[in-house]
């Protein structure tokens, strides 16, 4: 399933989906309470703190159920995301006081994105390429490959997943070789290739 992202990040970065209910009617309560600004009973960050720390504009979030994607490594109020959202989940699960009942309207669920960690090596391959080739040729082709990998990876057995990782590592390697062929027509790259030993220059020429 493809979701619309609400986070700017790097390809391959892990995200966590949290389902929240934004209740505008409780934004300003009688007696000066502003619910999104109220920390939970254990001093956890408020909903506004959490969303702001993750780059959302709380005021701009629409009312009702909203699935938001959070970067798993971002912290708010010195708490990891799991701690932040997990505490809220606990508040929901075990609430009894009036304050906690109000809290029940805030955090409704937490769903960790169960996805593979992308082999970092795949991206490292690309740093042999000139910037322009990497940006305009490698990146989009790599993203398609990553999309296929992530889509195929789900619902596979452990061994199948390992095999997929090997297969896609090979495909990335072949793709970088293809990109090198594209780069061999790049003037800056040809200039750099001039410093390579003769055999390597021959190889680069053959690629082009």
């Amino acid at each position, binding site marked *: 399933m*493809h*979701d*619309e*992202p609400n*986070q*700017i*990040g*790097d*390809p*391959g*970065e*892990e*995200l*966590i*989906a949290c389902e929240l209910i934004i209740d505008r009617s409780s934004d300003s309560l009688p007696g000066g309470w502003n619910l999104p600004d109220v920390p939970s009973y254990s001093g956890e960050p408020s909903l506004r703190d959490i969303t702001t720390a993750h780059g959302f504009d709380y005021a701009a979030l629409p009312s009702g159920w909203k699935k938001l*994607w959070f970067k798993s490594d971002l912290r708010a109020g010195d708490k990891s995301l799991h701690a932040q959202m997990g505490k809220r989940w606990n508040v929901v699960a075990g609430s009894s006081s009036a304050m906690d009942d109000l809290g029940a309207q805030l955090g409704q669920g937490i769903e*960790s*994105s*169960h*996805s*593979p960690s*992308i082999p970092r090596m795949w991206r490292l391959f690309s740093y042999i390429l000139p910037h*322009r080739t990497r940006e*305009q*040729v*490698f*990146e*989009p*082709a*790599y*993203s*398609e*490959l*990553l*999309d296929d990998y*992530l*889509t195929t*990876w*789900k619902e596979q057995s452990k061994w199948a997943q390992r095999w997929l990782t090997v297969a896609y590592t090979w495909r990335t390697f072949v*793709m970088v070789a*293809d*990109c090198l*062929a*594209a780069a061999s027509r790049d003037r800056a790259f040809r200039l750099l290739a001039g410093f390579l030993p003769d055999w390597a220059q021959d190889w680069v020429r053959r690629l082009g």
Partner: protein
Amino acid sequence: MAFPEATHLQLYVLRILLDSEQSGRFVRERFAEEGQAKTGPAFYQLMARLEESGMVEGWYNQKIVAGQIIKERWYRVTGAGVRAWNEAADFYRAHEAAKANRRGGLARA
């Protein structure tokens, strides 16, 4: 009338993008349907050249697949691209018309 500057493959990309902006993957799939399957790097190099010639504008959109960020390249045709498409269309129309005239002339003779 001058020959069109764009190649057939470039014109085919422009034709697809004239309808609406599209992702690189979508355009590449249309290529495959026409029997012009290309590897990712070969295809995106073609697109990079179109961008450099100013006929197409490219940018990245983000989407999330299995909880991971994916950058997807999207393209739209520019004014120069529309002009290039129209010039090529005019060229072939004029060429066809001239050919039809020649055939008509031969038939009358």
